[in-house]
């Protein structure tokens, strides 16, 4: 038979009468009859769900609260405190001057027994480590291997020194490395601060190369922060590694070290702070934090409270629904509720 025997000679040329005469084969999929579960929110399910959430959440909340309660935390804000009386009006000048004595010794009282290890953090506020310009200002390639030393694409303005030689590590993040130091003593006896393993093992092994050594660092016109010992490879510069894991929020803590011994209640700790880091030019705060940890991290009552709130809200909703269902019962699937049964006018 002529292939175009009954086709349209002129109309839509593409559309030959290609009738699909194949009968659709039956399958549960094509007929949309796959076995399926049809969940329905019956009163029983609703009440149970809410009650269940309440029953789960309240204990978790209590556990969180108790965990948080066991955490002992000493927070000491020293940015203003550590500036001599006479320099209070010009903090920036104090911190920028190389002549001033930046050592500052203070005594902290342990409020409650702190079991070791006690974590030492510094906490900065109003420091936008998450600023778009800042987070990008680094070169992961340069940090990882010596071969990529010249990869400084995003590092400007801290990519090279004024004579054009490459800065390692480049970029604003490294440049602004925190450089306050703390030492501790109890009853004139110095407490060892363990500065090992404060950075992530993964960073030390894979992100920061063991053959990459600091070079031309902090030699530019503007000193941003700490200097690095050029004889130690980056993979062992743990303070830098910690600092370069940029914080999520403008107020952040970073691990400084650990005190492995226990601190007893009411013990007097003498802290000697080298107050070098300039947060004064942008009104940033500096805190020293000593804290124990629990499974929930640091001291944090929020989650416990939130869980208790949500849990009790759900219990309340569960009760509320019981009452509502009792007050205004409706038979599920009663055809008389269908709109055309309620209102015959709608049906023509």
């Amino acid at each position, binding site marked *: 038979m002529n292939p*175009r025997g009954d*086709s*349209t*000679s*002129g*109309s839509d*040329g*593409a*559309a030959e009468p290609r009738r*699909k*005469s194949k*009968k*659709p084969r039956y399958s*549960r999929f*094509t007929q*949309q*009859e*796959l076995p*399926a*579960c*049809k*969940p329905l*929110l019956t*009163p029983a399910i*609703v009440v149970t769900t809410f009650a269940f959430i309440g029953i789960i959440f309240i204990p*978790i909340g209590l556990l969180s609260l108790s965990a948080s309660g066991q955490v002992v935390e000493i927070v000491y804000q020293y940015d203003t405190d550590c500036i001599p009386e006479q320099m209070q009006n010009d903090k920036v000048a104090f911190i920028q001057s190389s002549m001033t004595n930046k050592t500052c010794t203070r005594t902290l009282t342990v409020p409650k027994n702190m079991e070791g290890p006690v974590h030492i953090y510094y*906490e900065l506020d109003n*420091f*936008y480590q*998450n*600023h*778009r310009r*800042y*987070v990008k200002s680094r070169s992961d390639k340069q940090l990882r291997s010596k071969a990529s030393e010249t990869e400084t694409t995003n590092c*400007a*303005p801290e990519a090279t020194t*004024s004579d054009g030689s490459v800065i390692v590590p480049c970029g604003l993040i490294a440049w602004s490395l925190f450089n306050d130091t703390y030492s501790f003593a109890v009853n004139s006896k110095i407490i060892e601060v363990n500065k090992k393993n404060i950075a992530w093992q993964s*960073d030390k092994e894979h992100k920061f190369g063991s053959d990459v050594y600091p070079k031309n660092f902090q030699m*530019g016109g503007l000193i941003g922060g700490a200097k690095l010992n050029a004889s130690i490879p980056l993979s062992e510069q743990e303070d830098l590694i910690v600092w370069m*894991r*940029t*914080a*999520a*929020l403008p107020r952040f*803590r970073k691990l400084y070290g650990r005190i492995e011994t226990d601190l007893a209640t009411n013990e007097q700790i003498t802290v000697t702070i080298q107050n070098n880091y300039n947060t004064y030019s*942008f009104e940033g705060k500096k805190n020293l934090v000593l804290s124990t940890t629990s*499974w*929930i*991290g*640091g001291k944090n009552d929020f*989650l416990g409270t939130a869980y208790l709130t*949500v849990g009790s809200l759900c219990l309340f909703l569960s009760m509320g629904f019981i009452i*509502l269902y009792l007050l205004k019962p409706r038979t*599920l*699937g009663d055809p008389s509720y*269908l*709109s*055309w049964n309620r209102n*015959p006018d709608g*049906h023509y």
Partner: protein
Amino acid sequence: MAGNMPVFHPPNDLAAPAEPGSPVMVAPLLPKSSPRRRSLSWRSREGRTSWEAFSVENLELSGSRPVASYPSKRSDSEKLGSQREISDDEARLVYINDPERTNQPLRFADNSIRTAKYSVLTFLPRNLFEQFHRVAYVYFLVLVGLNQIPQLGVFTPAASVLPLAFVLGVTAVKDAYEDWRRHLSDRTENSRTAQVLAAGGEFRPKRWKDILVGEVVKVAADETLPCDMVLLATSDPTGVAYVQTINLDGESNLKSRYAKQETQSTSPEAMSGLIRCEKPNRNIYGFLGGVDVPGSKRVSLGPANIILRGCELKNTSWVVGVAVYTGQETKVMLNSSGTPSKRSRLEAHMNREVILLAVALITLCSIVTILAGVWLTNHRDELDDLPYYRKEDFSGAEADTYDYHGVGLETLFSFLKSVIIFQVMIPIALYISMELVRLGQAFLMIQDKNMFDEGSKTSFQCRALNINEDLGQIKYVFSDKTGTLTENKMEFLCASVGGVDYSGGEEEAHSISVAGETLRPKMTVKTDPELMNVMMGGKGTEKAKQARDFFLALATCNTIVPILVDTTDPSLKLIDYQGESPDEQALVYAAAAYGFTLVERTSGHIVIHVLGESQRYDVLGLHEFDSDRKRMSVVIGCPDKTVKLFVKGADNSMFGVIQKGRDLDVIRATQTNLLAYSSLGLRTLVVGMRELSKSEFKEWQSAFESANAALIGRGKLLRALASDVERNLHILGASGIEDKLQLGVPEAIESMRQAGIKVWVLTGDKQETAVSIGFSCKLLTNDMTRIVINSNSRESCKKSLQDAVSMSSKLAAVSPGPENILTGTGSSRVPLALIIDGTSLVHILEKELEDELFKVATVCDVVLCCRVAPLQKAGIVALIKNRTDDMTLAIGDGANDVSMIQMADVGIGISGQEGRQAVMASDFAMGQFRFLVPLLLVHGHWNYQRMAYMILYNFYRNAVLVFILFWYVLYTAYSLTTAISDWNTQLYSIIYTALPTIVVGILDKDLSRKTLLKYPQLYKAGQRDERYNLRLFILTMMDSIWQSVAIFYIPYIAYRHSDVDGSGLGDLWMLAVVLLVNLHLAMDVFRWNWITHASIWGCIIATVICVIILDSIWMLPGYWAVFNMMGTGLFWVCLLGIIVSALVPHFTTKVLTEYFTPSDVQIARELEKIQNLSTATTSEILMNTFSQS
């Protein structure tokens, strides 16, 4: 052989039905002079054909044809042509057999056709241009462009281009493939060959595309015509040729065309002359022209003298014609405008919400920009050496500023960056998802075995892929009648002969043998054994004679052409009766079944095989059907030298001309039978005869000849003669023909009515037929008040409409009002039905009465439009479409439905027996009208609810992410950092959350098929826009904001005093948001099958894997962050807390609405579940339950 298929066209013009209560009527004979045909004036370029011009029947005979052997083929163009000339500047001059001169000075288009859209060169620009008509794509293109600016480079360039490039690429490949197929078919078409008269005076093959206007072309039987030609000569001495126009207008019966006598006798090579004709236009039923034949007077040409490209020559061994319109200028090409692209209503509504989202986006960006500006201004002095800003640059020889352009410009950059970052607020993935979901839905619709037509072996077709969801919101269905509601198969069902009703019988093939060959009618008809016995019961009895005359009348009184069709058995041939009236075909088949087989027809005589012997009857004269007489008659010279007049016609016209005072019992009995037939919805005809005495015949013959020879008022003379001779008839009997309704039509209409869908029937049929079909398909019921508008002038139309308006309002006032709602019984008002005819519509649609019609039509429950022309059908659809928001659907099967199918929001073609035109123009095609029920009520409902939910969900999903990003920006000195890494952000809508919504969009079912069919009213949810509206959108957005707050602030507060790093917190936010949106989706899923499970849980697992992989790449800042996070209890407590507290409001609202203000769908869902539980059936295997009775 396709042309000989026994496929009958509806008796649009010729129907013989009954209005209940007044038994009826009608003779099917007049072939093609109905308003339906002639008034088909598309926007003809000349614009001179218009409906008004043709509203009055014109029955003048045109000259130039042999005496009354064939029905005349007149047209208004011809009529007009005789009255006025086409002026030279608006005419096309064609010199026959002189293509050079014809194509001077202007060359007409050659005969090549081109349906392909692109060429290799134009493909890229044109396809892109078309694709970028989607505003969303322009938006994303702008963003991609912005992202390339170094200062703004938020994402890596490759990552930012990819999504858009992917979308464009996929679409381009699809378009290219389609166009390539069009190229192929164009090429095949253009390189077909035809016999063209060459210089040497002989016909040589020439490729179609090379045929020029003016060339003389010869076409043999069963060949397709290569261009529009004026017939010059045919193999038949009388100049008749038969063509099948199935590809042109979808009608499968043969149409006769005529060569003018003046050219018929000339040999092809000697042909010359000048044809003056209209410029090319779209009107396939009109042609106006004239030919100057040397040595003869000017002869006018009409539509009956041209044969059009795309038609096939049938039953004529050859024709010779001259090409007048070629290639793109042929009528078929001018008529093949592509389907206008449609956009679904949901998508149109969606665009409104997209604009709202754009406003929200701009707001967010402005907030960020203003805050960034303020921050920069406040810190202006510190920026130089701010550790995290450091605009001073000492790396050069001199101190410089680094990447800082002043507060103003930096603020502007902030704005642009924020637009780039928050761009997913307008979800690009949604556009791809929608395409994919529609594809999936289309697949399921095609595969639905409930929409597979066993009869014609056709399955459902989705031709348009972007309006699936419209199927769930239809409020008006405009249906064609013949072939759509009815099967378009006339069946002779019963006869009343001599006042006795014969309606029993079985089917048996009745064959005859002539000259060693066995002939058998193609269709079998049930014969009543009793009637057979009566007929065979000896020649002597009066009854037998009457019965024989009855069937002789059926076999002779028609214009049917018998065509012999070969079968595989060489000794057996089938007789296929071809004619323009299916009623006549049915009658002739019936006569054949009773032993009166019409075997042959020539211009002067017919051969009938009468009960075993062939007899030759001379056709001495034929009086055509006309609408005044409502009957037709033939004068037959019988073998026994008697001359008989056979008449058939509508009962009311026939009883007037039947001899009074004779056969009173028979007449009374026949009338009773007719009443019974018409109440069954049968089309009835009354048959009568009279033997003409010699003198009478002589008298008639001379009058007939002189009338035919008359130059002026021939039609009138012939009509008068017919009325004169058709009198004192002896009644033979009556016939009942069934125009069979398609299976399940009344049930389908009832279902749609319950579903709140108004069904309008638009038909070319006569009013009586339309009404009787209306009753038989339960569209009309006896308790309806009918408003009938049949007017001939504007004023009377106006008056009728105004009367109708006041009547409908009066009825509304009379009917019981609110108290009825309280009692809850009975229907609230009298149902109204509007019946309006084409002539009235001409006045209404062209004058400013549309508003009145709209008012009346919308209060009526049923509207029946009769005698409407194709363009009027479109006009009626437009009447509703332009005045309301309601969705319209048009369904039809013929070429005359094309305009309406294209006009309606959703066009459906019945791919039944008629041509392909309706299917080609349609958005969906299927085999049967009743499939509308599963299509609309089941698939439409599902598609609508799925798509509606998917759109809202996509908005929600992206908004949650954008708001999280926004909250974070507030804590980054407004510097537009994202804690969530670029890759996670980009993958979010592509991998992390895309698949479940697509799967749910394709597979989720709120209700089972069984429930949807049981309660058609559930369809109204779609009509009410229940699943997608502004309120839902706002609620969804409020929910998004709450959820984003929960996701962002719970970790924010929990980690405020910790040493968490940005990437770790980012991972927590990412995992939380992915988990949350997927659980949110899971909560809204109605039916969980294994695919849903796999996709939702799979997606969550895939996300975790992706996040882990991303955090295992040392290059990225987030290296190992997720492992460190997952190692802490805080992470898990946060995650659980986020999920629960974010979802509690959504869950609570869902419970409250479902329980206390349940929608119909919700109650039906409960019903489904509870019934299932109580009967403990295995849930899902609910087979097709739609009644097949």
